[in-house]
């Protein structure tokens, strides 16, 4: 879109050159063909410097000068020899064709140069996007970067995730509107004038925002790669943010773990010394009956304090685990086996039965926390059941949940208590007299289930006894016995 002034200037320059050549050639009495070549040269130069239209005007002036001054009879418009008509026509057509070709080559070179410059700018944009300041909001940084590199008039960026508009440059208000509507219409838009465009920012096919740019120097299609780069910049900023949030959570967890470990150490040390001393006194066997009774009491209460400490710490760990569960695939049968291995000494003659249904069930969860929960159920059952009666552990899959149940015989839990026994430090009236619990165990189990998106409940009546349930969202089914079969086939 060159201005008319520029065309006029070209034409005038052509006219001046033709006039100069005519004057010189006429004074020097040059013949028709020599002066024709001189005119041709001028037309070519005009075509190269200005363009096709200027060259065309120049060629028309030149052909007329050629006719008037050099075609015999000279200084008339008449042409006596018909051959000279052919010469004039040939001159005009050749001049037009050649100037057309040269202009085209020129245009192409110019377009290539512009494209190269644009690619260089895009490259610079992509490079500098990597160095954006992660601590600051990314939107304003992107728009001013585009403004600076592409020398646009104004830029507006709409970030859909934050519903945020950032703009820079003059008259950016309508650009903001344009960017927003490009996003909501999910398509590229043209602005009010020819230099204004908007395009959607996409990651894959997912729109994440839109950008609107006004700039004369910007190629028609340049907005497409700019939009891609802006989309990448937004996404990058977002993942950095996510990463630093995860990092912060991780540090919080580490801190909590460190504090809990220090606490554990601080409590366990005196407890260890007390228990060593009390059990040592008993073991030495030099005490009177009364002394033995007292040493026994110390030993028993130290152990109770130890259990309370363990459970408090466990509770605190599960509270912490709500932030980060260390999930893995856990075989339900293995889980039950591991817990039973730890609890076998504390069952006091109560028999444990595990159903086969657990053999191929798996959950996706935090092994330690799940173990802590199941441990509490079995601990609870072993404490409140009738001595010598069996405790049954079963596992089954039902409606997308893995349900682990621990059943024991014994006095039922009162209906009022069935909800409340899962509360921290709540102990049923009867339980306070019968067994040495801490009031924490079942709340640990409940917390553990909830941390995994599961739940706990209890069913209890005098006829069948008490069953505690622990339900978790289903994991992946897998056959684990295939390895054994392979070996036994040998």
């Amino acid at each position, binding site marked *: 879109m060159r201005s008319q002034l520029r065309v006029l200037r070209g034409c005038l320059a052509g006219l001046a050159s033709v006039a100069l050549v005519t004057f010189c050639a006429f004074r020097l009495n040059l013949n028709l063909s020599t002066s024709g070549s001189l005119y041709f040269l001028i037309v070519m130069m005009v075509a190269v410097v200005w363009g096709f239209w200027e060259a065309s005007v120049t060629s028309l002036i030149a052909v007329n000068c050629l006719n008037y001054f050099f075609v015999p009879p000279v200084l008339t418009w008449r042409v006596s020899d018909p051959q000279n008509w052919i010469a004039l026509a040939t001159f005009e057509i050749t001049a037009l064709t050649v100037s057309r070709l040269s202009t085209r080559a020129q245009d192409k070179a110019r377009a290539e140069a512009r494209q190269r410059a644009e690619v260089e700018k895009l490259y610079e944009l992509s490079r500098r996007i990597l160095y954006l300041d992660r601590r600051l909001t990314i939107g304003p940084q992107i728009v001013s970067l585009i403004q600076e590199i592409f020398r646009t008039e104004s830029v507006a960026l709409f970030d859909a995730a934050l519903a945020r508009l950032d703009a820079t440059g003059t008259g950016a208000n309508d650009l903001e509107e344009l960017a927003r509507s490009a996003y909501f219409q999910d398509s590229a838009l043209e602005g009010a004038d020819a230099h204004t465009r908007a395009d959607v920012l996409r990651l894959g096919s997912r729109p994440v925002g839109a950008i609107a740019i006004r700039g004369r120097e910007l190629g028609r299609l340049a907005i497409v790669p700019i939009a891609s780069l802006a989309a990448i910049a937004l996404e990058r900023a977002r993942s950095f943010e996510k990463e630093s949030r995860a990092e912060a959570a991780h540090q919080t967890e580490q801190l909590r773990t460190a504090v809990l470990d220090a606490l*554990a*150490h601080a409590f*366990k*040390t*005196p*407890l*260890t*010394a*007390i*228990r*060593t*001393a009390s*059990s*040592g*006194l*008993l*073991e*030495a066997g030099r005490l009177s009956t009364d002394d033995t009774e007292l040493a026994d009491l110390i*030993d028993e209460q*130290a*152990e109770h304090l*130890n259990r309370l400490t*363990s459970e408090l*710490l*466990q509770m605190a*760990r599960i509270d912490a685990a709500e932030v980060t569960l260390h999930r893995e695939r856990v*075989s339900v*049968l*293995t889980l039950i*086996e*591991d*817990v*039973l*291995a*730890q609890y*076998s000494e504390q069952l006091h003659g109560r*028999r*444990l*039965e*595990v159903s086969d249904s657990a053999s191929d069930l798996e959950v996706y969860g935090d092994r*330690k926390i799940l*173990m802590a929960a199941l441990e509490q159920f079995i601990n609870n059952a072993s404490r409140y059941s009738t001595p010598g009666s069996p405790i049954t552990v079963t596992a089954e899959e039902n409606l997308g949940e893995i349900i682990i149940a621990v059943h024991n015989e014994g006095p039922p839990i009162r209906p009022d208590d069935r909800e409340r026994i899962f509360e921290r430090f709540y102990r049923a009236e009867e339980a306070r007299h019968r067994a040495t619990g801490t009031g924490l165990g079942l709340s640990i189990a409940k917390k553990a289930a909830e941390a995994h998106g599961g739940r706990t409940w209890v069913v209890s009546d005098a006829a069948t006894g008490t069953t505690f349930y622990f339900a978790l969202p289903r994991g992946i089914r897998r056959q*684990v*016995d295939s*390895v*054994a079969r392979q*070996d*036994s086939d*040998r």
Partner: protein
Amino acid sequence: MIPSHGKILIVDDESSIRRALHNTLHGMGFTVDEAANGEAALQLVREEKYDVVLLDINMPGIGGIRACREMRRSLPRLGILMLTVRDSEEDKVLALDAGADDYITKPFNIRELAARIRAAVRRSSASQVDPDAVIRIGIIELDPARRLVRKAGEPVHLTPKEFDMLRYLMAHAGLPITHARLLHAVWGPEYGGELEYLRTFVRQLRKKLEDDPAEPAYLLTDSHIGYRFAEAKPEPVEEKS
């Protein structure tokens, strides 16, 4: 009833625990020395001959696990018992991999500790065993040379891998064997993480050897850590012989 039972080194950074252990173990007939950290302990084991070292895992300085590794390198027959707290299974596995014989969780009952110490003393003073000697534990009998296993005199059919696993566990009866160590010993060094293999084989072995596979008396699970073959004869009937 209390002869000199052996020489013990207690290594713990907490003086209250050292004091309590020192007095109780001394009262039970052991000769006892103390060290407050790993460095001092390493110095002592170089100068004196101990039967068993009680080594706390969590200590400032080089810590229990490194101290354990160093001791094991120079004294392969020394009994090393680690003192740990609950919920630190990773530490226990590290300690066992570093060469510890066994671990005990604080706070412990002194009777249990004394039993472990006695077992360790026995082991460290026992002469080198013939690898082909028949192993008899409770009603289970394993003949390595003939690759035969009997339960209460009745032959038990085991697959080759089941036999190898049982043999390894029985040869180290009473000691915890970590999952990784058992996998290495039976399947080879390229194995280590295949826990389900182990669990499956242990289940099979229990079905064949235990009276009640749900409550094993011989092939015991050490939660998170590995397995342990019972050392003492679990059946009181066997005590007569």
